[in-house]
């Protein structure tokens, strides 16, 4: 059972009944979701808050019973086969720890190894591998409650992967992490997938996560799938813009370059500034052309010291897709 489909849903939906005073109202959290994730894929599951992402994940894991539709995870029906499914999936909920907060980190791994019925050899081998790859060695004996967020998140990921699941589900894994911690975690996930072929499903608001980790994105809006494909393709369909951030040697008034929109400036005074931001449509022009136009405008007395390209963030793309649909 190495290949095949890992997640398959058909018309999957979930309603919640909420009470408002004396009246009861039905809220549709997920309307009718059709999605498919093949073994070995890395898929970003994105959408605004309240689009139904968490609800979907809970139904994939067997925590929630679907109101309608069908869901198969790792060839199992999540709710009736929950206990068997637990051996096949690893889940990290960004805000809920599965570690024992008052125990040293390694103790949590030991307990989880027993929970998943690993043999002593399996436990030793896998723990050593994860400790090395995620660089957990320095805080293995520290109680979980004393870990930094970055350390804790790495420990959470290790905990979810200890039993070598076929599917790893990450719910906002990098939220609140600093740049270095994010990078470490992403590098690890890439390596882990290369080594073990683990299927990955992740929800995130971080474009970097999707870019570095995912082959494909699924976008949900109002409880239904509205896009499935590459991230670049998604950005293209909504004409999301990239932003060029320029650091100049001398402050100048806001640059006016054809095919770009000025998106603010910092540093400097009297209407002149050192850092300027120009947004451009990657379909219409290229970064090189914009840079050439800027250099020409600056003349010989001034120059571009540094530049960065900001990719459209997930929020922005999502907003645009939503706006286009309404």
């Amino acid at each position, binding site marked *: 059972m190495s290949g095949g489909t890992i997640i398959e849903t058909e018309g999957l939906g979930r309603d919640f009944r909420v009470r408002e005073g004396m009246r009861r109202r039905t809220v549709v959290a997920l309307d009718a979701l059709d999605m498919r994730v093949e073994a070995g894929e890395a898929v970003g599951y994105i959408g605004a808050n309240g689009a139904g992402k968490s609800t979907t994940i809970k139904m994939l*894991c067997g925590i929630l019973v679907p109101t309608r539709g069908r869901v198969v995870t790792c060839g199992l029906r999540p709710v009736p086969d929950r206990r068997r499914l*637990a051996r096949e999936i690893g889940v990290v909920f960004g805000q809920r720890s599965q570690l024992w907060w008052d125990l040293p980190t390694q*103790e949590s791994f030991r307990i989880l190894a027993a929970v998943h019925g690993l043999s002593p050899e399996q436990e030793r081998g896998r723990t050593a591998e994860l400790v090395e790859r995620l660089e957990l060695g320095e805080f293995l004996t520290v109680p979980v409650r004393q870990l930094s967020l970055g350390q804790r998140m790495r420990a959470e990921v290790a905990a979810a992967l200890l039993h070598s699941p076929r599917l790893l589900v990450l719910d906002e894994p990098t939220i609140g992490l600093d740049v270095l911690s994010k990078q470490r975690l992403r590098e690890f996930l890439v390596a882990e997938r290369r080594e073990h072929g683990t299927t990955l499903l992740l929800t995130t608001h971080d474009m970097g996560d999707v870019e570095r980790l995912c082959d494909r994105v699924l976008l949900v809006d109002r409880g239904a799938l509205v896009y499935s494909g590459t991230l670049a393709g998604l950005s293209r369909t909504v004409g999301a813009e990239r932003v060029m951030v320029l650091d100049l040697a001398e402050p100048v008034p806001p640059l006016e370059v054809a095919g770009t929109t000025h998106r603010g400036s910092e540093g400097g005074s009297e209407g002149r500034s050192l850092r300027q931001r120009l947004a451009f449509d990657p379909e219409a022009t290229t970064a090189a052309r914009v840079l050439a136009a800027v250099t020409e405008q600056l003349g010989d007395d001034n120059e571009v010291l540094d530049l960065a390209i900001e990719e459209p963030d997930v929020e922005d793309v999502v907003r645009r897709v939503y706006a286009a649909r309404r």
Partner: protein
Amino acid sequence: MGDRTAVLAPYRAVLASRVRAQRSHRASFRLDLGSSMLVGVVELAEIAVLFLTVDRLGGLDLAAIVLVFGIADLSFSLADTVFGHCDNLPTYLKAGTLDVFYLRPQPLLAQLVTSDISLRRLARAFVGLVALVAGLVVNDVAWSLGNVALLVLAVLSGIATFSAMFVWAGGMQFFLVDGYEATNAFVYGGRYAATQPASVWGRPLVVVFGFFFPMAFTAYLPALTMLGLPGGDWLPGWLGWLAPVAAVWAWVLALAGWRIGVRHYQGGGG
């Protein structure tokens, strides 16, 4: 055999870690033990104080009441040690940490029960045991085979019945946000009722704690049987032998309540 150890290993690992954690904070653990014992002693004293003004309560004298108290408190404290933290369910529900249990290949209830153990409550059990021994001595209970069997049966059934109450209350938490105060009225009210002679209960109490939640069967009725006392028209003395039946009924109630609660949580109707 290897199979059975493998099945129990997850629970043992969690429990062992809880025990180590509690013992690692020695000073606070001792303090917990002390306060826990004090509560038990105060409750026993409460009964003694009551008997300064009356000679008999519900047909029982002080000696008999101490026996009832001993059986009930020993059973309850032991149940509380193992099942008491089912009270924490609302916290797990609010923090969403219950979802983590769903990601592990063990039954939910078994995980909840073994997620903690309150060793400090053993201090209460000790008070109960002392009261029980004192009760047996002052009542001059004969060490007949029947009485020993009845005592063992009563304590075991009592533990099972009180444990069932905790599980039932846990199941109710799925419906009642912040509802543990309501269910505590039954769990701790039930414990209190169990240490009293059921013959002084009013009719509603008899219905609730005599039969629905079979608290009268945990201590009062077995004590009556042991002492050979009549228990009033509606509770004949031999009913004490039915303590295990009451325990089974309590567990039927508890598991049904738990199941309905979990169904509600997962939203599969119910």
